[in-house]
Structure formats: structure tokens, C-alpha cells
């Protein structure tokens, strides 16, 4: 497949489009792109995701957003209304079900039938492609806050067509972040190309007066991803989106757990994204940030889950991110009830309000962590760019082959799986083994040094067992894994 980091021409785009719309029956409903845009333009500005984020950034406010999606349109609207009103959510999601994510629309059809028969959702999300643009429009029409699609779809082209045509003004995902953590064998060049399409589509709306927000999925596998690795991916996806003409980009980061490292990571992410966009000549982009509350295994006890939720919210507030994706006290068990979901939101909002007029102040330690993350990220970004011989898109494909980009615990066979992460004595995530990630010698020894310190404190060797223990740490009620956590 021929891949290039270059804005798709209208011809290319339209040619692909024809194919895309044929992949499911609801495609033809959105055949008229101009009409779609016209409809989207008719949605009041107050429901525009991009504009709401921009305003929040300007006012230094942190917004809340839940995850939520059920099979049937009416129930989905009811759920989102509840989260908006009772949960005081600022931004609304539509979590898409797992079949749709794999373009298995026939399975959805069955799931929908079963859901109708049983009167409750038999799907783990909202099958937006099956509902088509009219179902999707009903959703945004019946809600007074902006709606975003949140999914994990390697090929989200048809979905993107439908959601934007329905006036949903934000789309989560990217060619890397919705492939490597979400797929076993989707080829990277294909997912990057497919997401170029989604980006270009968003940009076409933007160019025609409908601001659209795009959000690379920051946390990836949500499990001990070193900040520089997830930041590198987020920045690359921002660059790829910018090339297609996307203006509103929200770069994301999943809480690692050490407050200082998390704040440093968010600052680093914001600064390096802006710097890189400038550097590559993408002007006037509106960069906002999203912080994901702890994305790994959650504690089962609800009081402890609230602790994890609030602790993350304090970090979000201190780091002054633009929005927070909220977990719920049911996280360890399963898809939350609407009440549990609202409780997570209210808890988060309360912390954000309590901390609204506060922020973190620069200290020597913060500066140090900020620099480490930036240096590591730049090592990675430069190597990716080089690997692509100056083309970021090809660079990504090559970088995954060589293990320059390497995401811990990813299911994808295109992932090298060579790096090993572990926490240092303070809970910050470090490279235990940096595999083929091209860190400088200094950075490698820094990572090693920090882990040796933990080894001494915990009287244990620096090895994979550290990683294993760390995976269970938070659900066991600690941040740094103890030698016996995986055995309990």
C-alpha cells in the first residue's frame, strides 16, 4: 500500500469515499457530503465540541466527560441525559460497541434485535453505523451538550462519515492509537491511511464552517505505558491530523500515578505538540489536552475506587488539563449503571471545583521530570521521522517494525513487544528494558538508576516481576507493586 503523510486530494478522498459508503447499507444515507455539512452547520454553536474545548482552554477550566453507550437510540439518549443532568457532565460521549469497532455490522444487527427483545442493552456500546445518520442525529438533537464518538476502531471511515453528518463534532482515535491497542493484525499502513481519511473528512467540515475536534487516544493500553512513548504517539497523530487540515486537536494522556510525573507529562505533551506543529509548519492549531483517570486495573471496593477517581482528578486540576475522562466506582466489575457513572462524574466535578482556582507550581523536581520526558520523546520522534526518511506516516510503519515505537502489553502482532516498563521507588513509570527505543545512553542510565533505587528499597532484583507486581498494584491498593502482589 502506498503511504505518504500528505493531505489527500479531493479526488483521492472522493474516490475512497464511494467505496466506504458501500460497506454498509446506511452508507447511502450520507452520500451527499454538502447536505451533511449543511445539516452539521445548523447545529447550535453551544453543541460544538471544538468550540466548547477552545473556550474551556481560554478560561482555564477543566471539563468532565464520561464513557457511555447502549444499544438502542432512546435508551442511549436517556442515559446521556441522565449523565448530563445528574452527573453534571460537560461533554457527552457515545461509546461505540465492540462489533462496530471491527466493522462487524451484521453482529450488531443481531445484538440490536436481542436488545429490543430483552429490553436491555446486549451490546457494550452504541452501534452508530447500524443506526445510521438519522439515529445519530436524534441523539445530538435531543441533547444540549456536544457529543463525541469514542471507540477503538481501526477502520472508522464509515462511522466518521455518519457521526459528522449527524452533527457530532468530535471523533476520538488515530491510525496508531486505534490500531495497536485495539487490534491483533490490522496492518498499520492501512489504519494510518484510513485515519487520514477520517482526518481529511473532519478538515473538510472545518473548511466549510463546522469546527471539528479530533482526539488521538492517549492512554493506548492503559497499562504502564511510559509517558514519553504515549506522548510520542499522540504527537505523531496530531501531526498526521494537522497535515490533513485538522485544526482542533486534543492530545491525551492516561494517568500513570506519580503526580509529579503526570503533571510533567501533560506539560511536556502540550508543549511538544505545539512546538512540533509549529516546526512542521502547521499554523493556528488549537491544541487542548485530555487526562484519562487511571486506565489500568481498578480497585473493587467502591470507596477505594472513589479514591482512585479523586486522586486522578486532583492531578488533572493541578495540571490544568482541558478535560478529564472519568472512571466510575463500578470500573473493576463491568459497565457501570447510570447511577455509578453519574457518581464518578460528580466526584470528579467536585474535586475539580475544589481545586479550580489552584494549580501546580514549578519546582526543581518538576523541571527535571519535564526535561526527561521531553528528551525521551524527542529521541523517539526524531527516530520515527528518520525511519520514514522524512515522512512521518511511513516512519510510523517502519518504527513499529524496528521497535522504535513499542507499546507495552499491546495485542497487535505489529508491535515489537520488546520494551518493559516498571515503576521506580516513587511510582513514576520508567523503561526497565527500553528494547529498541533509541534513548540516549544518559536517558537509559537515568531509567536504570531510578529502578535500581527501587530494587534497593524493596530488596529485590530489577526484573519482569517488578512489572507484573506493578500491574496489580493499584487494584491491590498501592501504586508501587510489592513483591507479593501478583500472588494474592
Amino acid at each position: 500500500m502506498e503511504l505518504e503523510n500528505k493531505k489527500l486530494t479531493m479526488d483521492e478522498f472522493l474516490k475512497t469515499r464511494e467505496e466506504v459508503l458501500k460497506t454498509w447499507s446506511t452508507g447511502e444515507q450520507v452520500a451527499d457530503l454538502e447536505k451533511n455539512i449543511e445539516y452539521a452547520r445548523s447545529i447550535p454553536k453551544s453543541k460544538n465540541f471544538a468550540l466548547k474545548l477552545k473556550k474551556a482552554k481560554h478560561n482555564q477550566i477543566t471539563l468532565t466527560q464520561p464513557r457511555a453507550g447502549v444499544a438502542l437510540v432512546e435508551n442511549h439518549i436517556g442515559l446521556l441525559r441522565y449523565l448530563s443532568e445528574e452527573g453534571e457532565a460537560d461533554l457527552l460521549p457515545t461509546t461505540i460497541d465492540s462489533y462496530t469497532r471491527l466493522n462487524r455490522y451484521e453482529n450488531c444487527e443481531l445484538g440490536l434485535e436481542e436488545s429490543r427483545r430483552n429490553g436491555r442493552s446486549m451490546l457494550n456500546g452504541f452501534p452508530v453505523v447500524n443506526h445510521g445518520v438519522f439515529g445519530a442525529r436524534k441523539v445530538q438533537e435531543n441533547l444540549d451538550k456536544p457529543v463525541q464518538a469514542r471507540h477503538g476502531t481501526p477502520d472508522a471511515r464509515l462511522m466518521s462519515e455518519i457521526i459528522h453528518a449527524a452533527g457530532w463534532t468530535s471523533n476520538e482515535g488515530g491510525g496508531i492509537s486505534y490500531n495497536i491497542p485495539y487490534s491483533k493484525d490490522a496492518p498499520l499502513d492501512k489504519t494510518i491511511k484510513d485515519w487520514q481519511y477520517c482526518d481529511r473528512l473532519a478538515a473538510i467540515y472545518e473548511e466549510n464552517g463546522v469546527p471539528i475536534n479530533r482526539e488521538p487516544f492517549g492512554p493506548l493500553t492503559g497499562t504502564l505505558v511510559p509517558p514519553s512513548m504515549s506522548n510520542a504517539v499522540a504527537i505523531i497523530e496530531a501531526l498526521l491530523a494537522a497535515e490533513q487540515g485538522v485544526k482542533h486537536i486534543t492530545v491525551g494522556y492516561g494517568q500513570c500515578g506519580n503526580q509529579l510525573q503526570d503533571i510533567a507529562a501533560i506539560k511536556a505533551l502540550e508543549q511538544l505538540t505545539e512546538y512540533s506543529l509549529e516546526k512542521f509548519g502547521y499554523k493556528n492549531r488549537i491544541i487542548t489536552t485530555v487526562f484519562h483517570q487511571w486506565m489500568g486495573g481498578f480497585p473493587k471496593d467502591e470507596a477505594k475506587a472513589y479514591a482512585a477517581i479523586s486522586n486522578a482528578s486532583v492531578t488533572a486540576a493541578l495540571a490544568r488539563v482541558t478535560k478529564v475522562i472519568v472512571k466510575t466506582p463500578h470500573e473493576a466489575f463491568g459497565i457501570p449503571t447510570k447511577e455509578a457513572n453519574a457518581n464518578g462524574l460528580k466526584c470528579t466535578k467536585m474535586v475539580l471545583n475544589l481545586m479550580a482556582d489552584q494549580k501546580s507550581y514549578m519546582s526543581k523536581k518538576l523541571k527535571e521530570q519535564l526535561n526527561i520526558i521531553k528528551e525521551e520523546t524527542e529521541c523517539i520522534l526524531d527516530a520515527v521521522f528518520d525511519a520514514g526518511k522524512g515522512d512521518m506516516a511511513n516512519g510510523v510503519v517502519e518504527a513499529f517494525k524496528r521497535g522504535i515505537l513499542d507499546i507495552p502489553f499491546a495485542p497487535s502482532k505489529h508491535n515489537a513487544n520488546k520494551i518493559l516498563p516498571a515503576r521506580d521507588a516513587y511510582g513514576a513509570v520508567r523503561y526497565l528494558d527500553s528494547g529498541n527505543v533509541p534513548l540516549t545512553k544518559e536517558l537509559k542510565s537515568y531509567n536504570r538508576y531510578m529502578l535500581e533505587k527501587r530494587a534497593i528499597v524493596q530488596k529485590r532484583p530489577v526484573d519482569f516481576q517488578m512489572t507484573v507486581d506493578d500491574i496489580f498494584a493499584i487494584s491491590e491498593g498501592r501504586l508501587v507493586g510489592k513483591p507479593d502482589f501478583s500472588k494474592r
Partner: protein
Amino acid sequence: MNSKTIVIGVIGADVHAVGNKIIDYALTQAGFKVVNIGVLSTQEDFINAAIETNADAIFVSSLYGHGELDCQGLREKCDEAGLENIILYVGGNIVVGKQDFKEVEERFKKLGFNRAYAPGVKIETGIEDIKLDLNIDK
């Protein structure tokens, strides 16, 4: 090495890979031969792997909520494929939402699973059980 073989994998359209890697590591550490078919695996993938490796047990993981749908008929298909005595365990977040686990367990036992595990159960529990069920001394 105790010479017993276990097929592990994550069933259905489910990509949760972390637990799967941990289970692989822990079973191997415990001396089993592990055949890991990874995430996004179909019932057929499990059965084929079990036949090919002459496995003693299958550990199905399901995290994403569609577990009940994805597991229906697995026991019957095993029987048809001549795996009448194979031990079937299932674990993860095997149903949608927070449910009473006693009932959930019942449902999966009816589906033909020998054992079913509640959310976040440590794999060590599964290892103890399988040693029991396969008559492996500690």
C-alpha cells in the same frame, strides 16, 4: 514442567491483552505448557489449538462484556470435535456490569464450563484449581 498443556486466549471481539499476558507468564512459571492464541479469538481458534496440541484444558478469558454471547455453544463444539473431556474454565469480566456472581457462575456452569471466575480473581486461584482438577501434586 508438569507436561500438562493449557490453551489460553481471549474470546470474541475482545482485545484486552494484559490479563492474557499475565496468565501466560504465570502458567508457564507454574510449569504448564501454554498455548496462547491471544486476543480476538473465535471458538474455533480455541478448539483447533486444543486439538493440535492435545491440550488438557482451555482457559477462556472474556473482559469486554460480551462473554455470555461469545461462550454459548463452546462446550457442544468441543464435544463434536472429540474434546469430550477437556476442562473448560472462564474468567475476566465475563458479563455486562456488576452482577451477583453466584448467579453468573451458575449460568456459565450450565453452558458447560467446569469453573467460572469473578472479576479480578488472581490467576493463582485458577492454577490451584487446575492442579486439583488435573490431579497434579503440589
